[in-house]
């Protein structure tokens, strides 16, 4: 499978997107891939694949994204993708409390398959739905700490924090340890304050940094 440049092979990383039906997994990926948003993506059936090359300061990586179907019925397909991925992005909808509660199951499933040998990011999507918010940023952050995973809020619709999400993931990828911790912290601070101002969810304290 020849791919990547002739200079050095492109490092490839697999990311699996998990979360309930209609929380915005496909939308987040589409915003990241094509910088666009559409209200009417068909429900994902089974698993979709997408790939994007990310140019970081000191290296280039290729991200292979597995977009899973959120409905319970399709769940038997997912474990093999979790086993295969080095990153699991667990998404919930900040305007849907149940989807937030269900993230625990997803994270546990990832831990069952991969133990701690995996990067997990908890993502609260749809921050644009300000009036419908059911899950505060603090709750999201607390859950991320409880499970010892990364956390960020996004809005695929508004294009908010999507790049930040992927930069955050890229910075945490194996082989990226050389990146300074300070820089990672910076990134997180920026994200959270931005999230807070957008969602008017209150003050994002410095405690809201990445818990990993």
């Amino acid at each position, binding site marked *: *499978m*020849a*791919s990547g440049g002739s200079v050095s092979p492109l490092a*490839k990383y*697999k990311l699996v997107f998990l979360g309930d*039906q*209609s929380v915005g997994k496909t939308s987040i990926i589409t915003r990241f891939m094509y910088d666009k948003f*559409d*209200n*009417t*993506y*068909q*429900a994902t*059936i*089974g*698993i*979709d*694949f*997408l*790939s994007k090359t990310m140019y970081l300061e000191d290296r280039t990586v290729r991200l*292979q994204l597995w977009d899973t*179907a959120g*409905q319970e*019925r*399709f769940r*038997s*397909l997912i474990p*093999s993708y979790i*086993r*295969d991925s080095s990153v699991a992005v667990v998404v919930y909808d900040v305007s849907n409390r149940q989807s937030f509660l269900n993230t625990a199951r997803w994270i546990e499933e990832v831990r069952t398959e991969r133990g701690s040998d995996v990067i997990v990011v908890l993502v609260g999507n749809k921050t644009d739905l300000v009036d419908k918010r059911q899950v505060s940023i603090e709750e999201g952050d607390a859950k991320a700490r409880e499970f010892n995973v990364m956390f960020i809020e996004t809005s695929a619709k508004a294009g908010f924090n999507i790049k930040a999400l992927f930069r955050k993931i890229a910075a945490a990828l194996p082989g990226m340890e050389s990146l300074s911790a300070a820089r990672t912290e910076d990134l997180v601070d920026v994200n959270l304050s931005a999230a807070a101002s957008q969602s008017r969810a209150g003050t994002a304290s410095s405690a809201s940094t990445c818990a990993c």
Partner: protein
Amino acid sequence: MDPDKSTAGMTSVRNFLRGRKFPGTVRMTRAGDETPPEVAAKPASNAASAGTGVEVAASYVEDRQKRSLAGEPSTSEEARGHVDDAHLNANVTQLDLKNMAVSPRGERATSPTERTNHAREANGATTPKQASSGTQNTNLRSMSDTRKAKFKRLLEQQVVDLDALRELAWSGVPSDLRPTCWQLLLGYLPPNRERREQILERKRREYRDMVPNYYDIQAAERSAEDDTALRQVIVDVPRTAPGVPFFAQKQLQKSLERILYLWGIRHPASGYVQGINDLVTPFLAVFLSPHMEGSVSNETATDFPEEVMICAEADSYWCLCKLLDGIQDHYTHAQPGIQRTVFRLEELVRRIDEPFTHHLESEGLEFLQFTFRWVNCLLIREIPFQLAIRLWDTYLAEGTRMRDFLTYVLAAFLLTWSSQLKRMEFQELILFLQRLPTADWGEKEVESVLSRAYMWRASFHHARSHLSQ
């Protein structure tokens, strides 16, 4: 690059299949499949009365058409011609599978669709060779008129000959006759004319009664489960067939919502599963088509009278029930029906085009990764909506054999791009297969897929063990 080449998925499917009892009987071949080609090559009257199904009967579609159109029984010469034809096809199919897999429309491979075309041509005033393109167009028109007349004659019978209707419908149903034909083929309408109105009235009333009893109730009266089901449906309805503006209308979406919710709570073994929303769309579109001026593709603001809407909705509901009855295990826990179809597909493709299967294997691409949606939505998402309706003609004509035939359709569909795909690496492969270049397809392409599917079934069905290894 082994991170890409996970075989875990397929292994798990195999294990899954090995240790599992599927609901219902699992047969890799069917009784009707074991008919040797010699037997299959008997005149149509035998085939039809033997009830061996569409496949045998359909190979003689054109024979029957000729006879009935000409108003005379087929001559023995004609019959012999078909026998030779059938033998030739069988031989060609066995010897030249790879070629056919690649060629978009194998010249030697006549199938019911193509043969029917021949029949249509043969019934024109001039032979195709003599005809100028102008007269050919006229001929085509008159041929479709004759074909339509044939449908009409069948539908006017006191008791519709369903076998004959299946044969005819297999190659496509004229759009204005689709509502009736589909409902007959699905067994929703009884073949007997006299009983039809009564049954229709009863079924529609039954549906109407379900709405206030199950759907139009206070949220508090709904169980938590039903409430979850309703929410799932509500989320999916607005994103059903987004490419077809017709379904963006509020009225249509409300209907869709009721149908899906009611279907889900009345089928608790599976409940509503995403993708079933796609499967209702052909029914709604076709059953409403008599009340539309334009076609579904350009109709965006039709305000159907309530009575029209509720009838189409009820009919769609019952037809969805009939359609899904045959493939229920596609949607039950762990979706064994889909897993099995994908497994059978892989084995079939290996038989037809081994280098292709090898290529996928060496790239680490599993069938389940790209065919899951194909099976779950019966290919409806992979082709333009109008063509899905054409595809439905054949599915419904296949009746109970549809789920088996689907494997062959999938193989023919996939191998349409065999030579291109063999040159692609993992990433390119999967991206291509997820978004196939079918946007500019017409009926010709769909019928070519169906032809090859038909042919492969004819050549593989008597190899009893071919899919059960």
